[in-house]
């Protein structure tokens, strides 16, 4: 997709030209975009023609009230909905630079999940050792060489800011770690396979404030390596860590823009009501 159609597609959702911060910044390269994406759980339509870009090496936050479809939208990116019967997609999610439509019938969801990682709401380490948790994605990809596994496990744990805490405990069970450490273990597990996009589904909702702060710091660090798309129910969190924010309501993206613009100068009345706490 070239830059002209890209800008057209953004339409009113493009960053506010009058905002001094946004005016000087050229748009970063696109990593992915949803094109008129609709999603149905059986007869219930959860997403209604969503168009939204995801920029490379940026953090994009999805905010909105419960049930607005933000998690549903996120889970389209790694075809998680394919695990359950009766779900149906319409439209496209195009992954750049190769222009693959992730939702196409002939694209294997497993191949999609090999390119796009995910971190869940509740830390979900496997009941295996710390080492095996991180190595699992590599094992699935057929990596068996011990030194390569060791190297990738260490790299990923370092990237997830967990290495120093667990380097002498590699054979302990992942479940022995604290909640925040478990979530960082899950991040390391997702990073080990070098995903192009990392999806976070309310990654701190089960954590205490200190663990939350460390995850947020980590997310800001990680965007140098990987593109991040994150669902959060916490607006302050979106404001703190994201570069772009989409406000969703009843299956639609109401407003999308640079986070500073969206929070300080929302263009839509609904967005303003939500972020000022008058609604939601």
């Amino acid at each position, binding site marked *: 997709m070239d830059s002209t159609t890209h800008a057209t597609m953004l339409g009113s959702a493009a960053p506010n030209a009058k905002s001094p911060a946004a005016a000087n910044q050229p748009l970063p390269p696109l990593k992915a975009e949803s094109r008129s994406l609709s999603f149905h759980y059986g007869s219930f339509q959860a997403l209604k023609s969503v168009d939204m870009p995801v920029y490379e090496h940026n953090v994009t936050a999805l905010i909105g009230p419960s049930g607005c479809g933000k998690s549903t939208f996120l889970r389209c990116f790694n075809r*998680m909905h394919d695990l359950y019967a009766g779900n149906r997609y319409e439209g496209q999610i195009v992954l750049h630079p190769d222009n693959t439509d992730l939702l196409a019938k002939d694209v294997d969801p497993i191949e999609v999940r090999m390119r796009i*990682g995910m971190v*869940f709401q509740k830390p*979900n380490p*496997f*009941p295996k050792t710390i080492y095996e948790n991180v190595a699992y994605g590599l094992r*699935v990809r057929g990596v068996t060489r011990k030194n390569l596994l060791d190297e990738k496990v260490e790299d990923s744990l370092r990237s997830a800011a967990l290495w120093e805490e667990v380097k002498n405990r590699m054979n302990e069970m992942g479940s022995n770690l604290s909640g925040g450490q478990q979530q960082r273990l*899950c991040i390391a597990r997702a990073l080990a396979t070098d995903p192009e996009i990392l999806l976070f589904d309310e990654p701190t909702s089960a954590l205490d404030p200190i663990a939350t702060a460390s995850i947020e710091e980590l997310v800001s660090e990680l965007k140098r390596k990987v593109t991040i798309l994150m669902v959060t129910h916490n607006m302050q969190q979106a404001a703190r860590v994201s570069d772009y924010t989409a406000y969703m309501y009843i299956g639609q993206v109401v407003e999308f823009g640079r986070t500073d613009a969206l929070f300080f100068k929302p263009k839509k009345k609904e967005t303003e009501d939500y972020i000022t706490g008058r609604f939601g």
Partner: protein
Amino acid sequence: MGVIAQNAAEVRGLIAKGRRWDTIFVSLGIICLGIGLLTFATLFFDMAIDGWSRLNPEFFTQFPSRRAGQAGILSAWVGTTLVMLVTAFFAVPLGIGAGVYLEEYAPKHWITDIIEINITNLAGVPSIVYGLLALGLFVYAFGLGQSILTAGLTLALLILPIVIVATREAIRSIPGVIREGAYALGATQWQTIKDHIVPYSMPGILTGVIIGLSRAIGETAPIITIGALTFIAFLPPAPISDIAPYISFEWLKAPFTVMPIQMFNWTSRPEEAFQHNAAAAGFILVLMTLTMNGLAIWLRYRLRKHIKW
């Protein structure tokens, strides 16, 4: 006076009234538990006392005999052990396979619904019916004879529903996020099953297997139906020999007897002395069952220690 208690005395009265029901229920519960435990303990100790005189090493190393004092349970316990091995060998992989398929792969429609209802009902079919089925199928149609193999297959059929149900329950207890976690890393369905679903449900599956085997070990009716012997004074051929090919499966075709049949045989004798033999054999059989149940509890504890979510 209002609906809500006004003063401290009234509040205390209300609490006391509520507590009375706690006391009543706890007493009832203890009585129910006591009836069950006492009945079993009485049976168990009665057998132990009756059979005590016969519980010596020779009892385990001697074949049955016309003289009660020389009769032992060698052929019975060897037969029971071998039949259980065959039962486990067939029931475990079949049960786990069927359970995994139904839980993970089977599409949800009316055919699977019917299969599901069938399996649950199979667990309640009287064991004599399995015996008749086995007589027609294994003994006559397949020509397997009145052998250890036939008995093992019959009991495997009998406990298959137990293993399948236990497998499915165990799989269902795995949280969805663990499964999604595996898929999210790009695992295929088979990788998810082999690396996660089956290992994490192993404690539950093993418990089901052992509970099934504990049921099978005491089964008499289907074994009699397929024609197990009541008096046998030789052992099946040994599985290992010193001449090539060293391993032999002849024992599978051998005639046999099992513990409950040996017991039944002795209790039907008129001589008083055989009653002591029967009591002693019963005591051993109960011990075997209790040991298996103990093993199930221990295994479940050991394996579950590491499986936390």
